[in-house]
């Protein structure tokens, strides 16, 4: 109990001392909180997005087979379906028909696609919520398209996907096969690529090899590669994250270094007086320790709280402009709150511990000097 009372007395003194320089310390806490906010927002966003992508794409096709012409993805003849189906271990092969449609009125690109079973009439379409939001020229349920040969095509919107599914459907327009071919100009007998289902997951690499042997112009893409692409999308080492984090970390180091080397005359005099009235070095170190803890812990807690609200309640709004790039259409999505306790602990030790140390170290040098010299220097 006596120890706790003693520490509280140190805290009382430290808080009074901080309050005397409240504007300086408030700006310090503000900057520090912002650094923690940016870093933890990135950590929360990257972690939650990684989990979301992994969960959503878990049922993606085991393999996609593309045809390459001149080093580029080209239309695949539907005759390839039978060739792939003939390979032992392949469960089913579906020719996927999909492509892009640029709508000049909205200045946006949309993904047009033919589902395997389209339950509506030829003139009907199903849309993603983002399409309806950005298209601009929807009249009632009528939507106008321009076909590849310049004709105008009026289609009826029969279904709009829920806004909650924006992460997979925001720019999606589903239509019948004849209408797709009319709009995109993809000739009969060709598809965009093939989706392959495999009986035994273990055989996927062998099947991929057999496909490239049988069709040298084919390029198989495995589901594990799709998942790994998204797992590394917002990786720590990816360009944007690196730039964002290095800026924040550098700012923090400059800030901490300035604090470590710049002990003000007022602070020196205060230490000299405390030594003069009988405080020993350990007591002075203790008040500075509480000062470091007070500022860094407050900033850490406020920064993490703000970043959690930013990422999981406000859908990472501040990152939206960066992620959106030049795109007109950006999906509205809410991430499932996932926080890695280990990453949070690392963030805590990388922010609270160094600051507390750099606060204590210069004081230790001064507090071991003779009080008379310290006061004269101050």
């Amino acid at each position, binding site marked *: 109990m006596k120890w706790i009372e003693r520490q*509280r007395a140190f*805290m*009382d003194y430290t*808080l009074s001392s901080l309050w005397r320089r409240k504007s300086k310390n408030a700006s310090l806490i503000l900057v520090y909180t912002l650094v923690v906010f940016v870093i933890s927002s990135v950590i929360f966003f990257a972690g939650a997005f990684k989990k979301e992508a992994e*969960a*959503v*794409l878990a*049922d*993606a*096709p085991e393999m*996609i087979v593309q045809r390459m012409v001149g*080093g580029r993805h080209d239309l695949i003849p539907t005759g390839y379906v039978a060739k792939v189906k003939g390979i032992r271990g392949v469960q089913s092969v*579906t020719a996927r028909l999909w492509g*892009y449609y640029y709508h000049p009125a909205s200045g946006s*690109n949309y*993904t047009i696609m033919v*589902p*395997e079973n389209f339950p509506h009439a030829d003139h009907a379409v199903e849309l993603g919520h983002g399409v309806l939001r950005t298209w601009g020229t929807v009249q009632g349920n009528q939507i106008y398209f321009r076909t590849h040969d310049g004709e105008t095509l009026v289609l009826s919107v029969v279904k709009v*996907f829920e806004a*909650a*599914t*924006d*992460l*997979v*459907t925001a*720019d*999606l327009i*589903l239509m019948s096969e004849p209408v797709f071919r009319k709009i995109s100009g993809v000739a009969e007998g060709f598809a965009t690529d093939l989706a392959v289902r495999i009986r035994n997951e273990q055989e996927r690499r062998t099947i991929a090899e057999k496909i490239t042997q049988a069709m040298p112009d084919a*390029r198989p*893409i*495995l589901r594990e*590669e*799709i998942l*790994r*692409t*998204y*797992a*590394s*999308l917002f990786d720590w080492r990816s*360009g*944007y*994250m690196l730039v964002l984090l290095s800026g924040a970390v550098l700012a923090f180091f400059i800030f901490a270094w300035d604090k470590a080397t710049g002990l003000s005359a007022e602070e020196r005099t205060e230490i000299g007086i405390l030594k003069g009235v009988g405080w020993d070095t350990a007591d002075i170190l203790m008040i500075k320790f509480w000062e470091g803890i*007070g500022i860094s812990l407050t900033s850490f*807690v406020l920064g993490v*709280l703000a970043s*959690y609200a930013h990422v999981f309640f406000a859908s990472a709004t501040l990152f939206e402009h*960066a*992620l959106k*790039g*030049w*795109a*007109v*259409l950006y*999906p509205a999505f*809410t991430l*499932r*709150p*996932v*926080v890695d*306790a280990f990453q949070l602990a690392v963030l805590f030790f990388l922010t609270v511990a160094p600051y507390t140390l750099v606060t204590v170290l210069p004081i230790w040098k001064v507090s071991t000097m003779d009080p008379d010299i310290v006061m004269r220097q101050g």
Partner: protein
Amino acid sequence: MRSVRKSTPYLIFIALCGVCLGMLLWLHPALSARHHQDVLEVKRRLVLELRLTDLCLFTEARYTRHLSQADLHSAFQDHPLALEHFPSGSMVRPPVSLWMRQ
């Protein structure tokens, strides 16, 4: 009248922040799990039925819209040393199947 010690409001503030943080980190994910699971099921069903391969995140260019299906030279679409001009190209890595082979 006995004045309040400076450390008392500070400790109360930190304790309240700690409680809020604890609730957000542990209680909020648990409480919202059901809602998120329902939405996730819908998204997974769409991925399965439509055989989707990519998330609709960057719609500015075809190689950022379908990241995993991008050409071999993407994100530097035209040739390996071509300068990238779409902002999202600076945020993402090329498809993992390309750089893992090196």
